[in-house]
């Protein structure tokens, strides 16, 4: 093991809990991750002893809370190697971040006759905001297809990007686990004069992120998938783009001045942060970033590659043709998220039997219905692993699957 797994597990109180006398085998971190004690403590201490609104008052508590809120921004900016902290905008979640890009950048830059490019493996959050805007503005959406093993098929990418104004893609599929070549995709987009928007929800929590190395234009990601609380998401954008964009939501905090005739916008990042912000959540997120930094994102990735190898080997050895694991079998190009079909047992029934052993997997379409249609599946079961998961938990998944098979023998 590249990381001290026992030590890490001890930091997550819920992992020591039992349900009906059995330990929790949490394999749903691609959906949302658990939280270490340090995140829980940071939020609880902040609410108990340090809470105050930010940015508005001169008293000590307000200044301290503002410092903590802005400190979270600085930490997040460093975590993804952003050039400036003010390029990081806090939102409600990554979905809102993508809606912000569509509504602010998209509404100002896209019109009839234009085209944008998405991929066939996008989450609904990177599809629907564009479809909503396309219905108003009349631009077209082009789709990058997939190869048989679940990678992006770039054989016609130049045609697809020709004349496109934006290329918005996930850095890692929440269904297939595919890790996309972000730097190469950004470069392709730029060569065709398109901006590159990255949905980083699935990759940022699991591996190092460097937006400057990528030369990306926007990156959307969420706190709750990277050990932080729900209720706060992030949009990073290049300063020049954020500066040129109209605001998203209007209200307090985002203005420089308001008169009866109109308003002027505040500077970045306040321009995109209307109303009272998720202050407590930012404090929790800050502790989550500290926690991940202490372990090291390279180590997180190494650990998950080991788990992935073990999971692919074990599932295949134990179940052979009874299991179909979607996506690539090469751990270099996939993360530790495995969607699978097991015999002809419906994913809901799989997850129900697994739940008897506290093995938590997601069953359904994973908010990626176009991809599910491509896979020819209405639903899949999905087991996803994180830094706190062990190979023993892969075995627990397999044991529960064996029982599922016995129960549903037709």
């Amino acid at each position, binding site marked *: 093991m590249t990381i001290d797994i026992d030590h890490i597990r001890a930091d997550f109180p819920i992992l020591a809990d039992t*349900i*009906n006398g059995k330990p929790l085998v949490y394999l749903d971190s691609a959906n949302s991750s658990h939280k270490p004690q340090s995140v829980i403590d940071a939020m609880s201490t902040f609410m108990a002893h340090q809470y105050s609104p930010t940015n508005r008052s001169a008293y000590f508590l307000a200044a301290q809370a503002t410092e903590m809120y802005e400190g979270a921004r600085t930490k997040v900016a460093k975590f993804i190697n952003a050039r400036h902290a003010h390029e990081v905008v806090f939102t409600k979640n990554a979905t809102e971040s993508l809606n912000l890009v569509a509504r602010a950048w998209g509404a100002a830059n896209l019109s009839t006759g234009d085209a944008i490019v998405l991929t066939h493996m996008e989450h609904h959050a990177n599809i629907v905001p564009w479809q909503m805007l396309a219905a108003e503005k009349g631009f077209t959406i082009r789709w990058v297809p997939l190869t048989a093993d679940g990678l992006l098929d770039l054989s016609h990418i130049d045609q697809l990007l020709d004349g496109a104004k934006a290329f918005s893609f996930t850095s890692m599929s929440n269904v297939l686990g595919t890790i996309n070549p972000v730097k190469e995709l950004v470069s392709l987009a730029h060569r065709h004069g398109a901006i590159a928007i990255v949905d980083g929800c699935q990759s940022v929590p699991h591996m190092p992120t460097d937006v400057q190395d990528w030369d990306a234009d926007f990156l959307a990601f969420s706190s709750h998938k990277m050990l932080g609380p729900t209720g706060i998401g992030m949009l990073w954008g290049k300063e020049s783009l954020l500066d040129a964009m109209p605001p998203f939501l209007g209200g307090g905090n985002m203005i420089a001045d308001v008169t009866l005739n109109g308003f002027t916008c505040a500077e970045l990042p306040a321009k995109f942060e209307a109303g009272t912000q998720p202050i407590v959540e930012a404090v929790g997120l800050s502790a989550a970033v500290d926690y991940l930094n202490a372990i090291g994102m390279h180590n997180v990735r190494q650990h998950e590659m080991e788990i992935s190898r073990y999971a692919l080997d074990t599932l295949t050895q134990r179940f052979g043709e009874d299991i179909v694991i979607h996506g690539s079998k090469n751990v270099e190009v996939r993360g530790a998220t495995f969607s699978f079909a097991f015999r002809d047992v*419906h*994913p*809901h*029934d799989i997850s*129900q*039997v697994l739940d*008897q052993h506290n093995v938590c997997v997601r*069953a*359904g*379409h994973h908010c990626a*219905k176009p991809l*599910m249609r491509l896979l020819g599946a*209405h*639903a899949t079961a999905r087991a996803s692993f994180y830094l706190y998961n062990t190979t023993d938990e892969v075995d627990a998944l397999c044991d529960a699957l064996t029982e599922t098979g016995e*129960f*549903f023998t*037709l």
Partner: protein
Amino acid sequence: MPGLEDLYREIILDHYKSPRNRGTLEPPAIRTEGHNPLCGDEIEVYIAVDNDIVSDIKISGQGCSISQSSASMMSAAIKGKPVAEVRALIHRFKHMMSIEDVEEPDTSAPLGDLEALQGVVKFPVRIKCAVLAWNTLAEGLDTAAQ
């Protein structure tokens, strides 16, 4: 904690493995689609209504064992029954599933094998699976009445 046997009763698995009344009906039979957007289950219910009697019913689509067996048992229970009786049974079934807006039902509509689905109530996430076919059938009956 309720066990698997509370949910997957033998008769339910039997209907799942050997679904009754699978297939489609040609117009003028009424075709109604139902979706469970959370899990992607899809169902199509075809009904032929003659002289206020559901003379035939066919089910197609795909879903989990609970949604499929519920649909199969429903089809067996209502085929050949008067529309009023079918509506009463829908009402009674939804009441058994603790769907909130259903008042105390008319218990004259016998549940028969459908009682096996009672265990689903202990698994609230699966209630939507069990009632999908029934809601779709109710919609089909509304169309037939127009």
